[in-house]
């Protein structure tokens, strides 16, 4: 699966899509693949204030439990409730139906700390075994 061009990426393999000042956050295809089958997504609370690169929530796969870090700072305005019943959407559709939370972007400058799809692709090359 290609990493969509319009998204911004973190080193911890999260992505964020900015639309009208709201960032939709999820994990990348590489992340879902390394985690293997995801069985539980702890949804963050609406209204929670998060900071860039600090813990947003926790995700559980058959293999391990992993922290998900927020690509941007701001307030959580919406969460993907459907993941409670079908966490496998994160595996099947990491960039679309598998989004985790929407965060109100606090500081546009923070996007400079993130990678473009192209940079992320390069970064992944250094990660391969």
């Amino acid at each position, binding site marked *: 699966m290609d990493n969509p061009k319009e998204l911004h990426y973190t080193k911890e393999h999260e992505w964020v899509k900015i639309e009208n000042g709201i960032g939709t956050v999820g994990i990348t295809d590489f992340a879902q693949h390394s985690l293997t*089958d995801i*069985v*539980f997504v702890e949804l963050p609370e609406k209204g929670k204030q998060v900071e860039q690169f600090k813990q947003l929530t926790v995700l*559980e796969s*058959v*293999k*391990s*439990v992993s922290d998900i870090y927020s690509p941007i700072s701001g307030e959580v305005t919406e969460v993907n409730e459907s993941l409670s019943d079908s*966490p*496998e959407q994160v595996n099947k559709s990491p960039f679309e139906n598998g989004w985790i939370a929407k965060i109100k972007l606090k500081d546009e400058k923070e996007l400079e700390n993130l990678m473009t799809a192209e940079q992320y692709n390069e970064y992944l090359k250094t990660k391969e*075994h």
Partner: protein
Amino acid sequence: MKLIFEKGAEGRKGVSLPELDVEKKENLIPKALLRKELNLPEVSELDVVRHYTKLSTLNFGVDSGFYPLGSCTMKYNPKINEDMSFLQGFALTHPLQGEELSQGVLELMFELEKALCELSGFERFSLQPAAGAHGELTGVMITKAFFKKKEENRTKLLIADSSHGTNPASCVLCGFETIEVKSDKEGNLDLEDLKEKMQQDVAGLMLTSPNTLGLFDKNTEEICKIVHEKNGLVYCDGANMNAIVGISKPAEQGFDIMHINLHKTFSTPHGGGGPGSGPVGVTKELVEFLPAPLIDKNRKGFYLNYDLENSIGKMRSFFGNFGILVRAFTYIKGLGTSLKEVGENSVLNANYLAVNLKKDFDLPYNRICMHEFVLSDKNFPNQVTTMDLAKRLLDYGFHAPTIYFPLIVHGAIMIEPTETESKETLDEFIEIMKKILKEAEKEPEKLKNAPQNTPVKRLDAVKAARQPDLRWKKQ
């Protein structure tokens, strides 16, 4: 196999009660309170005996086969430990019977604590924590209390990237933020990374020693020094103490707090058996924070000392898993000075396996190991995974090693033979591991479809986690 609820027939009983010799009264229980949905099994005595006898044969334990589950130290549990814990004076003790009637029990706890102090170099131990992770929590709470008393606000704790998952969990429970410290190429903690992260707002470091790669960090003293220079505390996750018991003392290496898993190093049962026990030891300056009560002695005899002003409080109801303490005490006293050979032989056995297996398997941290070692899935052919290998081992009558941990090794296979296995068993395991690798090349479907010889075939772990079916219901 059918459940006990699915066996038997309506009206079948295991006992026959004598005729009533009083007048039978109907409707003694109001109808509204009578329940029919319980579906209690209606079976004969023989049905019950056969059912549970059969169930017991489906068990796999260290008494039935080799159990190389890394990090868990599934060593043999000597039966004399069981005998001692069943002695009436121990087994029939009630925790509220008072100090006067509990002198023997208290003496055993007192002596066990002394033995643990001697083996680890720490000043005092609390025997309360009921398992390793519970010990970690105790240790982190002590760390918190220590800085609270000093009126220092330290909000972070450092954790090695090879640590047990319970380490960060214990920190978070106490409100600390965790920061991961990297391992270097040899599997030691990266000193530069540690120096950078050990700042003034960091309370300390949690380090597993020997670490989860089965390696003794050669920089342990230096690591403790770096943390101490910033007045932090170093916690030793002692889950792997088996390798060094009787040989080196963690307190002398610079650690401030440590838990010891009695159910690993000191041979008490675990793995569906249990319960566990994770005593926590501390240096002199931290004794005042230990959970109360401690067992002390005065002119009258042994007593429960609650007089600890800065104690973090009780960590468990009553005084810990006492039956387990008896077993560990028996083990320590039974072995005496030859306890040292436990460490030596566990290291020898692990290295024997590692050296023989690394000819065919990838050993990413290729150096002399301690009590365990970690292989990777690097040279597996035909998309065979670590999971497939582990499942295939079950077909050959071995318990699987720990897999996919530590996370820093790809497809990790963590093998810990323990000192209680004979050379014959180790040779057999080596042969089977090599055989499975050959099967992976020529007949990979044998691994993909494994296990075949077990009571249940490969379980759908994903479905079990996503849609757990936890309760039997009558159709």
